[in-house]
Structures are given as C-alpha cells and as structure tokens.
C-alpha cells in the first residue's frame, strides 16, 4: 500500500509539473525581424 501511495504521489506531482509547463511555459516561436520579398526577373536577386 505504501508503494502504491508513493507511485500515485510521484505521478500526481509529475502531472502537476507537466500541466504547469504546458499552460505557464514560454514556448512558441522565437522572435525574428524582416520579411520576404518576391524575386523579379531578369536577375532574380
């Protein structure tokens, strides 16, 4: 029973940390600057 409780406790803590990382994390795309310009004939530069 003690082992079972410990496993449940560890899984609970892991789940809590996972949820915090999921909803409070600063993921997403890093910043960039600039943009895309279509290349034109004759040189396509």
């Amino acid at each position, binding site marked *: 029973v003690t082992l079972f409780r410990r496993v449940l406790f560890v899984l609970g803590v892991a789940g809590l940390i996972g949820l915090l990382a999921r909803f409070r994390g600063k993921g997403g795309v*890093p910043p*960039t600057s*600039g*943009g*895309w310009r*279509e*290349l034109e004939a*004759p040189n*396509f*530069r």
Partner: protein
Amino acid sequence: VTTALIVGVGEVGVRAARQLVDTPAIDRVLIADRDRKRASRLADSLGKQASAVDVYDELPAGVDVVATALPRTADAEIIERAIEAGVPCASCDDDAEAVAVLEGFDDLAKNRGVAVALSCGLAPGLSDVLARHAADTFDEVSEIRIARTGWGGPACQASVRRARHQPALEWHDEHWRDDQPSGELLMWFPEPIGARDCCAVATGVRTLVSAFPHVPRLSFALGEPPKRSMLRRRFGDDGEWGAARVEVWGRNAHGQDCLVYGVVERTSVAAGAVLAVTAAHLADALGGLGERTAPPGVHGLGALVEPVSFLAELAQRGVRVAVFEGVPVA
C-alpha cells in the same frame, strides 16, 4: 517533332503532363501509367497533343525525353531502359535509397552520352537550383541548409514519413555523418506557411554533395506530415500547400553573410512544373535554358541547369521564389 513521355500520373505526373502540353516546343506528349484508364482519361482531357501509351516492354519510338513521377524506387527500370535507348530522363523520386540506385546508372549514362536529372521536385529540385543561385553570390560557401514542408500525393507523404523515421544523413566537414533524427528544428518559411518544425533527413543530401562537393556542411530537413486518420483519408487534408527554404552561408565582399530563399506553392504544382521544365530542357525544347548544355551523367538540378533562366521559366508558369530580408533565424 519533339516528343515527351511522362510515366506515372499521380498528383505530380498530372501537373507535369499539363505543363509539357503547354510548352510550345513540345509537339507530342505520351502518357503512361499502370492504370491505363487513368492515363487515357488524362490524355483525352489534354487534347490532340497528348495520347496514352504502354511502356511495359519497351519505350515508344521517337521519344526525345522521359519524365517519371512514380512512387519511390519504381522508376529505376524505366530510367535504365531510357538510358540504354539514349534518351535523357528526369525523375522526381527524392527517396535517398532510390536516388542512390539511380546514381548507379552514372557510368551507363556517361557511356551513352545521356543526361539524367534526379529529384526534380520542390525540394529537392527547385531548392538545389536556388542553392546554386545563392552560392553564385559568394566567394566561398561554408554551409547550405535546405528545409521543406508539404507533400504532393499519398506516395509523397509516405516517402516523407519514411525519411523522417530513418537515420539522417549530413555532409559535415567533408565527411558523411549519419545520425538518428535528433528532434525537431524550427524553420521559417515564407507566409502563409510561417514557422514549422522540421527534422534532419537523408533526403536530398546526396545530390547536394554532388553539386557542391567543396561546401563543408550540407543538410536537409523535412516537416511533419499530418497524422493518418480516417477523416483525412476520406476528405483529404490541408497538406497540399508546401514550402521550401534554402539557407546559404558563406563569405563575400562584406565578410560572413547569409542568403535565404523561399518558395510557397502547392507541392504537386511546383513539383510538376519543375519536372516538366527540366524534361523540356533535356529535350532542348527551351531555348533560354540552353545556355548550359546538360552534361551526360546522373545529376541533381544544382549541377544541371542555369539558375536564372530556370527561375524565369518557372515564374512564367506561376512558381515564384522570394528572398528573406532581415535577420535570419534558423
């Protein structure tokens, strides 16, 4: 009379056949597919210039160029037969193992004086031409990174899935390095695709190394195809839009610099246009592209075509490229 034979009429083959019919200097387009009815329907829809044929036993007489748009490894036999007959060919198979098999025909192609174009798609394919175009602006190129997201039809999607699960191949300090896929890299493509996760693969690296043997680092990454689900199989998915990104680092008059080119187009449309333009070039049906005569042997597009005239021909067909201006983030 200039005759082109297109073998395989899936998503890419259909587009390539239409592009070949729309090429003024191509007089006749022969269409072959294991599904003869599908080939006949396509030929009927393309008008008098097109007709369906069988290529199980031998090539039809009078063919000037062969373009293949078949699932991975399926075109080796027809390409070998074309080389034996002295007919140039273009293949859009980008699978690393299939490309290695086709590269094995190099000696045969050189002996027969025939040019074979490998991996004629969005990326690899057009990306190799853009890499050549960018590399021409540098005195010394240190690294080329190519990435693609998007897929043509089911065969292309399966090929992407397979490539992402196999060990990646990188050309690093002029040595081959094969690693297990090491996670996703965030790649920036032109809008509206934007940022996508891609992972390093073996696809496209061999042809890059052949075209740029003195560049120390070459790599290729592919985006993740959608998960397979019953609804997606039944109603299709949004994967038909694709994008390629070509990042070239090197030294020029300003010091160390980077040039990033990108393309956004429906993957099968871009691949079909690239395959058709390459085939027309090999058949000498495009005057403007004749500045660089296709050398005999098996080559990727980076070693086979003149970038500016190739890009001009593609632009006329609606496939346009862009350059990134700003601070690049890999």
